[in-house]
């Protein structure tokens, strides 16, 4: 049988999926082992145990200075910033996206502006955000919104444009008002795509969250990484990176699950990654 027609069993698939992860861990352990043979206190490639110990210390032992459990404080603050920023972006994507996609006058007025605005690399206007919003939470959330909203609005507007014209004409012939068409026709078609836009938007959102926290902050996952970078504490940085990856992965899966549950029909056509 040709290789393209041979499918792995469930168990094989799982094992194959785990292989690259296991291989990475092994390669890392070997490299770390040899580095630490020479210098047991090496900071660059700490042992898995010391990373585990550092993670445990961050998660379960109150900080000497503030008495906080740092990992959870950082996680909650970061997720709050991320959540607020993405909530604002989602609301903007939904309202502006539908307006741009459905109403030609709004489209003419906003689409070119938005297309231009979305090309500004958000990090470059960070100093302006500081001056305008200060160094507090607002500037950080604004950075996330500016970094994610334009693209999300554009993809939502495109989703509206993609609705077959016949359906809209049919609704009009049946005497639907614009508001009825938006709530009964456009919204159900657009919501699953909004979730897709949200999932894609989360990728840059994490980047902007970490960048904003790196610049001026007192808490947050990005803050911690850039803080301990000052003394090369890879045993804290690497577990934090894994933790961020895990959080991002879980968020993404949860959104996918939500989409599957809420819009079963949208996923009827087959599975995606």
């Amino acid at each position, binding site marked *: 049988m040709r290789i393209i027609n041979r499918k792995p069993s469930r168990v094989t698939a799982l094992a*194959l999926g785990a*292989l*690259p992860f296991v*291989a*990475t861990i092994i*390669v*890392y352990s*070997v*490299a770390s082992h*040899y*580095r630490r043979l*020479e*210098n*047991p*206190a*090496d*900071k*660059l*490639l*700490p042992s898995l145990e*010391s990373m585990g*110990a*550092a993670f445990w*210390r961050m998660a379960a032992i109150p*900080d*000497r*200075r503030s008495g906080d459990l740092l990992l959870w404080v950082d996680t909650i603050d970061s997720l709050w910033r991320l959540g607020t920023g993405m909530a604002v972006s989602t609301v903007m994507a939904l309202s502006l996206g539908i307006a741009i996609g459905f109403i030609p006058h709004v489209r003419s007025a906003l689409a070119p502006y938005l297309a231009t605005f979305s090309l500004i690399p958000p990090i470059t206007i960070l*100093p302006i955000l*500081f*001056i305008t919003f*200060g*160094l*507090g939470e607002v500037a950080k959330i604004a950075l996330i919104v500016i970094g994610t909203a334009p693209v999300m609005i554009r993809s939502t507007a495109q989703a509206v444009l993609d609705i077959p014209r016949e359906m809209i004409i049919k609704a009009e012939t049946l005497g639907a008002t614009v508001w009825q068409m938006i709530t009964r026709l456009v919204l159900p078609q657009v919501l699953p795509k909004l979730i897709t836009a949200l999932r894609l938007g989360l990728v840059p959102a994490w980047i902007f969250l970490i960048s904003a926290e*790196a*610049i*001026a*902050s*007192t808490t947050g996952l990005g*803050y911690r990484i*850039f*803080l301990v*970078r*000052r*003394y*090369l*504490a890879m*045993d*804290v940085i690497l577990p934090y990176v894994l933790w961020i990856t895990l959080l991002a992965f879980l968020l993404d899966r949860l959104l996918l699950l939500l989409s599957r549950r809420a819009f079963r029909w949208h996923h009827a056509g087959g599975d995606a990654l």
Partner: protein
Amino acid sequence: MKSFAKASLIAAALSLPLSISSAQAEEKKDFKVCWSIYVGWMPWGYLQDSGIMKKWADKYGIDVEIVQINDYVESINQYTAGEYDGCSMTNMDALSIPAGGGVDTTALIVGDYSNGNDGIILKDKTDLAEIKGQSVNLVELSVSHYLLARALDTVGLSEKDLTVINTSDADMIAAYATADVTSVVTWNPLLSEIEAQPNATKVFDSAGIPGEIIDIMMVNTETLADNPDFGKALVGAWYELMSIMSSDTDAGIAARTAMAEASGTDLAGYDAQLATTKMFYTPAEAVEFSKAAELPATMKFVAEFLYDKGILGEGAPSPEFVGVSFPDGSIYGDANNVKLRFDPSYMQMAADGAL
């Protein structure tokens, strides 16, 4: 299988250069030291450009490359990772990063100490005690943080009385311009830039804790032990330039002008920065400073500060976790884990004219 092969290839490619360390003890001919922009370290760049370094390296039949690195912390990390044989850094960062990371490090050339180069600035307030309850923007865990801790001691406050906001030095000037920033701790040239603002008052600076923020050329102890010529060449070149730059001859002015330009200012600006830096222009001064009784006390302060902030190596059970040895043979901290050594013998050679 393909993804596995690929992943392991990539992982191997990524980790191989890390696993091969360059800190091997052996005799060698080529050495690399790094430095970053700071008033007291500008001579390193000039040593390379002017050929003084090459002259001294040739004398000992070795090759020394002096590399400038744009990011200070990155330069220390590179040294700690074994990419460089030496690097300019402060006594505090030397204790926390390479020494705390198990890289045995020797203070080869004690170049200067900050004597006003680091300072605390308040907006619309004029007294250090008024810092109570404020948010203070600074590069956390840096010498700025240390300066703040020492300053708070002098007015009976502690860090609990205020909120420290970690702020990148690159954004410090812009941060000061925003309304919610009311106090900053930073170093020159940012310090003088911010101090020039009409509402800014410098309420404390490193002249209040003289000799505690020390700028040093740190070198790998093993490399130095196996290659004394490396130490001799660096020290010889350094003090030749020190005697040139401290003079008001044409050569001295030319050297300082070149250093001023390299640090983005002019001769007057650079001289102003030198005025708040206690440079050890002669090796005798540096040797005397290294042997002084204050140094162990300073290192104790520093170790306690680092321990307090949880920086002194992971799982460090006490401030004495890393040992620091001094010229008189005394040791602060763990005698079985001496990783930072103040050894003025090479500077002494320069003082004796024995290089």
